[in-house]
């Protein structure tokens, strides 16, 4: 019932009414208590600074370029003077008679502006400002222009590749990116900083492209820094490096909201088990340079486009992640919100309760977008080699309920659906550059009967076979135990004794072993019966499929008799399995009864009665003939992830997987990825730019609508967007363009910047490189890598929280959800799974504590020191000199050779650490080394600790 944005709450107010308080009084109270009235005495009110922004945020939504309610526009003073249906809104010098003032101070709710549910009343301070401005004569700026038509908004216009400008400073530029920036530099009279040193660039490009620092020998191998092509060759090599996919997948995992599952305790409430399949798909796709448009299509609709292809279906983890056990509205609202923000840079969520206040998105459009997703649900498909879906399975989307209607919720309140109209899937009209074509997709039988996947029946049989094997082993063990017990005991002790206290039978070891052995035999019988049943069921299913075509329709000329025989065999085998199992249950109950204490017997006897019943039933069933109505239990290849929308303690009713998919999501994907879509490519290049360059071209990165700031570099953005599209949506092409630009390669220092630093202190025009605080994962992964202990295993299940402290895997493989977040990573602003379109780069004391106190850093410091001290494994001792050591340490941890001053400071500290009185404990006894040796080694470890706590380690210069 609480609206997402704008407006006030209907029910809330009606409760206010119940208390007998009139809302006007409430508003008056708010005003009286909260608003410090701004001083507007002697100083004249500044229209541009004080009035226009207010009108823009509170009034333009209905009285501007977007809409002209009552034919009134408030976006220029001239239009205010001219007015609308009710006459002029503003009368110069006369605030009292100005309709604008009258309407905003109106206490009658149905007359007030902004209207109820569209926005709060203006504050007294705001009204005072307006009055003053009008009283002062409602002065207007000379060159005031009305708001531009929303169609003309830069981000909604088609992307046309702009001409690359010619610039004077030809020495600087390396590619068109620099030409666009250079043109601005010339216009503003600022000068780009020189190229950073080779070592700074090397560290930069390694950490940026693969998320790990360069290994010294790797650098030598690729291209020594003194060759002319070293940089380009390094870039090409890193873009081909499989670690690149790991690095950039993590960026897109932020944007696409990757999260492992979470819930209360073991109850799954959000996202899905085994969602890592989607993460692995991302890593592989980025490494393979899968076109960005194709990635979007697969994430939104792989189940419609490639229904039987499990590799591609992994992509729909994007949708599976939005699963929410309890509430469909929250689930779908989040889906719409983040499809809007993530792919399109549109805040569709602002239109949930009312028309969007800034963009041409009607409230109905929010629900039209929702309708694309209305039918979808989530299930786990079986993957080769594992039939237990708790251990592995593929979380994926599919259309389940094609008939579910979508309704507009009145004022966004899910309790108030407007059932007068069923909403059809569609996109906002302004962005409908072509008619949407939604065609239902007929699915192959493989998709709606996933048990038809080649491995499913085989795996069921294999798993039954393994159960038999295990039962055989257990039986053999039982037999050995029995023999042992018989051998080791004198005949006299075989007599059963009675325990006087608990009334419990006391059995001899041999009797015990004999009982266990018999039970093991029954278990084996049962496992064998199960194996037979599974095999017969599999055969029966294959026989049925033989009578159908690939779409699952029965053929007319079908070999019916074989099928019937197979089905009958399956039914019989299943009955026999039931009998074997119930025999086993009965026997084990008898055995338990024999061993039980007196007070437990009644309970077990009750269970015995039930077990005897089912045994008798099973025996009867085996005797009775198979009749045409009888069925066997089909082996399954998938499980729907149940929802609890109706009641929190009960699963909603299950259903059969439909043979058709609505085709809605492929239509949506087609619209999003159409090269004519003005937003998709612009939003993508902005994300990529922000991560390479430390700041985006358009901010906030999820707001390309009219509320956001128009970009300073729209031509550059458009050029990059066109490049992305024309390269076949190759992200690697985009990466290469950006990292080989002169803009990327500049120094981040302001030294020698002269006028540039004063003319553009915020670096809006990219005259220097923006330093970046390393992301959480890069901090941790780099430390492991420098220590030489990074576990480079790729992919697979996420590392469980309990295993993370000892794990040396890359951080992106850590289990990461709303509930479970790694402490070290969180300290460095790791992504929140709810929403993270741009990472924070905070600098807080917790980071200092983590880097200076954690066992992780202390241990790694020792490993790094050992590695530098003994560059080759063949070296017996730590033989390199202190100054060689200092050089090695700076190069490895900071990617830089030390200056003389840095070396001197470090050498001084090494000596200080070695002073006698610095000894803390006597570990040397344990190590078998001398005190001096220990101090020597510890001092080098401490130097590593210091460099890891150096600002230059966590900063990408």
């Amino acid at each position, binding site marked *: *019932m609480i609206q*997402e944005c704008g407006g*006030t*709450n209907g029910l*809330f107010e009606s*409760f206010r009414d119940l208390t007998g308080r009139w809302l006007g009084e409430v508003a008056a*109270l*708010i005003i009286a208590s*909260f608003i410090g009235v701004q001083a507007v005495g002697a100083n004249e009110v500044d229209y541009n*600074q004080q009035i226009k*922004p207010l009108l823009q945020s509170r009034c333009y939504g209905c009285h501007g370029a977007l809409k002209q309610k009552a034919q009134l526009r408030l976006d220029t003073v001239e239009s205010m003077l001219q007015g609308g249906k009710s006459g002029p809104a503003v009368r110069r010098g006369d605030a009292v008679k100005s309709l604008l003032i009258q309407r905003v101070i109106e206490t009658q709710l149905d007359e007030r502006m902004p209207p109820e549910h569209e926005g709060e009343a203006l504050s007294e301070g705001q009204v005072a400002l307006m009055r003053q401005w009008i009283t002062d004569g409602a002065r207007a700026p000379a060159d005031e222009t009305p708001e531009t038509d929303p169609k003309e908004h830069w981000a909604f216009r088609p992307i046309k590749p702009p001409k690359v400008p010619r610039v004077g400073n030809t020495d600087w530029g390396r590619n068109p990116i620099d030409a666009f920036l250079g043109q601005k530099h010339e216009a503003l009279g600022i000068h780009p900083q020189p190229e950073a040193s080779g070592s700074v660039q090397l560290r930069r490009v390694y950490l940026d492209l693969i998320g790990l620092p360069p290994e010294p020998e790797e650098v030598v191998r690729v291209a020594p820094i003194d060759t002319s092509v070293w940089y380009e060759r390094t870039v090409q090599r890193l873009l081909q490096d499989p670690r690149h996919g790991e690095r950039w997948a993590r960026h897109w995992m932020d944007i696409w909201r990757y999260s492992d599952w979470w819930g*209360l*305790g073991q109850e799954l409430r959000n996202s899905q088990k085994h969602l890592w399949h989607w993460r692995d798909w991302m890593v592989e796709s980025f490494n393979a340079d899968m076109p960005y448009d194709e990635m979007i299509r697969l994430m939104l609709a792989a189940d419609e486009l490639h229904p039987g292809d499990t590799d591609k279906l992994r992509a729909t983890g994007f949708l599976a992640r939005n699963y929410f*056990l*309890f*509430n469909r*509205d929250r689930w779908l609202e*989040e889906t719409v919100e983040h499809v809007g923000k993530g792919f399109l840079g549109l805040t569709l969520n602002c239109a949930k309760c009312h028309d969007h206040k800034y963009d041409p998105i009607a409230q109905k459009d929010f629900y039209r977008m929702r309708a694309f997703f209305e039918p979808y649900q989530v299930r786990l498909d079986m993957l080769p080699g594992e039939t237990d879906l708790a251990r592995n399975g593929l979380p994926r989307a599919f259309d389940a309920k094609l008939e579910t209607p979508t309704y507009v919720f009145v004022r966004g309140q899910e*309790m108030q659906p407007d059932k007068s109209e069923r909403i059809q899937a569609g996109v906002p009209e302004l962005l409908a550059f072509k008619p949407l074509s939604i065609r239902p997709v007929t699915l192959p039988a493989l998709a709606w009967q996933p048990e038809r996947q080649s491995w499913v029946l085989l795996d069921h049989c294999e798993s039954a076979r393994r159960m038999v094997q295990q039962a055989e082993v257990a039986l053999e063990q039982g037999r050995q135990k029995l023999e042992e017990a018989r051998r080791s005991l004198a005949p006299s002790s075989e007599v059963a004794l009675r325990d006087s206290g608990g009334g419990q039978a006391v059995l001899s070891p041999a009797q015990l072993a004999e009982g266990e052995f018999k039970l093991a035999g029954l278990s084996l019988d049962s496992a064998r019966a199960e194996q037979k049943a599974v095999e017969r069921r599999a055969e029966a299913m294959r026989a049925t499929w033989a009578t159908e075509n690939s779409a699952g329709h029965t053929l007319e000329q079908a070999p019916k008799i074989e099928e019937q025989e197979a089905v009958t065999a399956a039914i019989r085998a299943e009955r026999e399995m039931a009998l074997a199992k119930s025999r086993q249950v009965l026997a084990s109950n008898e055995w338990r009864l024999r061993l039980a204490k007196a007070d437990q017997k009644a309970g077990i006897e009750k269970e015995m009665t039930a077990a005897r019943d089912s045994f008798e039933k099973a025996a009867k069933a085996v005797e009775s003939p198979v009749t045409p109505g009888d069925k066997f239990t089909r082996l399954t290849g998938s499980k729907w992830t149940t929802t609890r929308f109706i009641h*929190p303690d009960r699963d909603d009713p299950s259903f059969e997987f439909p043979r058709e998919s609505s085709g809605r999501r492929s239509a949506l994907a087609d619209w999003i990825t159409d090269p004519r879509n003005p937003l998709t490519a612009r939003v993508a290049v902005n994300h990529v730019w922000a991560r390479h360059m430390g700041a*985006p071209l358009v901010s*906030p990165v999820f*707001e390309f609508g009219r509320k*956001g700031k128009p970009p300073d570099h729209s031509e550059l953005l458009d050029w990059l967007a066109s490049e992305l599209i024309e390269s076949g949506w190759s992200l690697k092409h985009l990466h290469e363009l950006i990292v080989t630009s002169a803009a990327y390669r500049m120094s981040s*220092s302001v*030294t020698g910047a002269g006028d540039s630093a004063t003319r553009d202190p915020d670096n809006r025009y990219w005259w220097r490189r923006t*330093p970046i605080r390393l992301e959480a994962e890069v901090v941790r992964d780099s430390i492991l890598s420098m220590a030489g202990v990074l576990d480079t295993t790729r992919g697979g299940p996420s590392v469980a929280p309990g295993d993370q402290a000892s794990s040396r895997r890359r951080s992106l493989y850590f289990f990461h959800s*709303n509930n479970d977040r790694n402490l070290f990573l969180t*300290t460095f*602003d790791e992504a*929140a799974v709810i929403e993270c379109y*741009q990472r*924070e*780069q*905070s*600098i*807080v*004391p*917790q980071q*200092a*504590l*983590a880097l*200076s106190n954690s066992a992780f850093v*202390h241990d790694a410091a020792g490993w790094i020191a050992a590695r530098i001290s003994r560059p080759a494994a063949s070296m017996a001792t730590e033989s390199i000199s202190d100054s060689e050591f200092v050089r090695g340490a700076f190069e490895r941890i900071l990617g830089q050779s030390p200056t003389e001053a*840095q070396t001197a*400071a*470090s050498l001084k*500290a090494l000596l*200080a650490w070695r002073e006698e*009185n*610095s000894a803390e404990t006597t570990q040397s006894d344990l190590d078998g080394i001398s005190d001096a040796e220990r101090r020597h080694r510890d001092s080098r470890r*401490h*130097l590593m600790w*210091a460099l890891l*706590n*150096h*600002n*230059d380690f966590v*900063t990408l*210069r």
Partner: protein
Amino acid sequence: MGFTGLALGAMLQRDGKASELTWALPDGRPHFSPQARSVIWLFMNGGVSQMESFDPKPMLTKYAGKKISETPFAGVQDAGKLAIERSFAMNAEQRSVLYPLQVGFRPHGQSGIEVSDWFPNVARRVDKLAVIRSLWTTDSNHGAQTQFHTGRNSLDGEFPTLGAWVHYGLGSLNQNLPQFISIGQREYWNKKDGHYLGPAHDAVPLRIDPGNPLDYGRSERPFSRRDRSVGMDLVRELNALSGVEYPQDPGLAARIASYELAYRMQMSVPEILDFSRETAETRSLYGLDHAHCRDFGQQLLAARRFVESGVRFIQIQHGGGGAGAWDAHSGLRANHAGNALAVDQPIAGLLIDLERRGLLDETIVLFASEFGRTPGSQSSDGRDHHIFGFSVWMAGGGLKGGVVHGATDELGFHAVENRHYVTDIHATILGQLGLDSRKLEVPGRKRLAIDHGTPIHEIIA
């Protein structure tokens, strides 16, 4: 993470996001003259029964065993009045058979406010309390814990908690300590505070263990003070050398400052949690000599010591984890009697101790839970979740004492007089701290009137 003024990188970042001309990051000063400077937020997880704590309802005993529809108060079940419910997980079950009061009540103090016999010590301080008996919320499941902290139903998404707003809006009172502290277990839906304000505004979780109170609060490997100090000197020198090559780098300056603060904090926090210098009388005031209330007593004593040292916001969860300890679906009598025993003496001790040290005037103490409990019975001896009317109380910080504000109907079902949504509590606290929540709004994050709430003027002194 509980430190104002140092989230510098975040600040620079945010600068770039500003899209409204008038917007600027808070400067850490109150917007108007504050009446209070700190908050101790005591949250009883699970849902305290309003009628068995601070809102006695003899009619429940009179009509015990009757269906609500058979009593003169049948109107409380009007569908219209029940329509505010909106659950994280639907939980709407009407408990229609009235369940009698499980505990006696008597008037206390000069004000004569009635308090249940389960809270005898707090009752003796009742003249210090402003009891609000007319709260309502919308989430009838434990997502309401989040709702009480953020003001939003969790179906709407994730939003900053009140503590995060205070932290965001106000500067530091003590540079050696985190300004926003969380004590006690929090369930996953209520784990974080900053949300869109950023992790820099999450509460710093603390353990009441002077040996290890803070994550990474001491070196996890042997590292002598002297070795550390040589190391820090070197770091300082190297950072200064970098400052020559990269002058005017705000990130570098913030990083250096963050290390200094971290070090001071690492020293100060254990000192605050070391109770050895508290007198035996003070320790027993908080109930530290009784096993049943020692844990909570230690938390509250720590809270006082933090407030004394200038910490802004201390958020304490009682019985956190899972649904919460107060969630008495069955066995309410044993449940509430036990929980009350654990918190009653420590809370009364806190009020006394704050007052005698002159801290109560500038510290707001809040006692609250996510919702109340049903007048009807569940599983014969329990009560279910109840969102339509429940009680909280506040004390100190420029608020009136010995007053009751608002009322529920005869069954304790609906708040009927001076109804307050949970954000009215937020507004009252922010107002006393001198903050205008409307001035704290962040571009791109529109807030509604209901998010801001309205201060409860009737209880402000």
